């Protein structure tokens, strides 16, 4: 078994356990960042007013760095 096959997959049928979903977070982030690097959160939306009020001028909490997932 190679290291890649150890990443838990979110299946079509049934459910993924919370532990497996957590375990797959870093791999999913890495796959995402291969094709869309950085934060791709929208810069603006109709919810800006309430979001920026709640999150100190940002549109949400900062994302956890990949290394800490």
């Amino acid at each position, binding site marked *: 078994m190679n290291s890649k096959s150890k990443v838990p997959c979110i299946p079509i049928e*049934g459910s*993924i356990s919370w532990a497996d979903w957590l375990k797959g977070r870093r791999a999913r982030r890495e796959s995402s960042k291969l*094709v*869309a690097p950085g934060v*791709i*959160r929208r810069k603006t939306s109709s919810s800006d007013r*309430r979001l920026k009020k*709640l999150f100190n001028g940002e549109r949400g909490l900062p994302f956890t760095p990949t290394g800490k997932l």
Partner: protein
Amino acid sequence: METKKIRDALADITAEQDPTLKSAKLASLCSALWLEHGVELVVVGGSAIEILTEGAYASGDLDMCHATGAMLPMTQRKEIMGLLDAKGGPRNWQIAGMYLDLLGPVESFARTPYRRVAAPYGNLLVLQPEDLLVERVLCSFYLGESKTARDCAKVLASVALRKEIEMNWDEVRRLANLPEYRNLPQCVQLVKEVADELKIKSPLHPD
């Protein structure tokens, strides 16, 4: 759900500083509470994409829809969300340091099941990635080019091509041919572009 369990869950979610965990846990708690009243909720939009991809896309609002036909009356919604010290309503609430928007009945054309995460406070349903992918590809060009929508489609394709989420590619093809989307060429092109970047064969590309 017992009051103490709700209180403990709420404290956990309020303290959570990882936006994706916070969102998933809140969706889990709300889903469990609503299900006790016969209504199944499903995570949609950017929050769904985030739970499936970790793509660093979602903002601080969680979008959910009801998957069951019936919706709860406003008084009952107020009662349930009151258990969570939610402010606002009857469709938008501020809870545990984020926002929850309940958008109405879910719009999904996919025949595959909702994806399911056995989250800490109850099962969490997520809109099918097949539908999310085809919809984001549509959003990436139909009102002019949107790089954000295109990036979302690319992260979904990448995570699926690397088999970290199971995607039914036949269903993607069927959805993209529906009158609601009619964007198969664009889907084929985007998935091929991502597959080429990853040096993987595209499952949508004809041999």
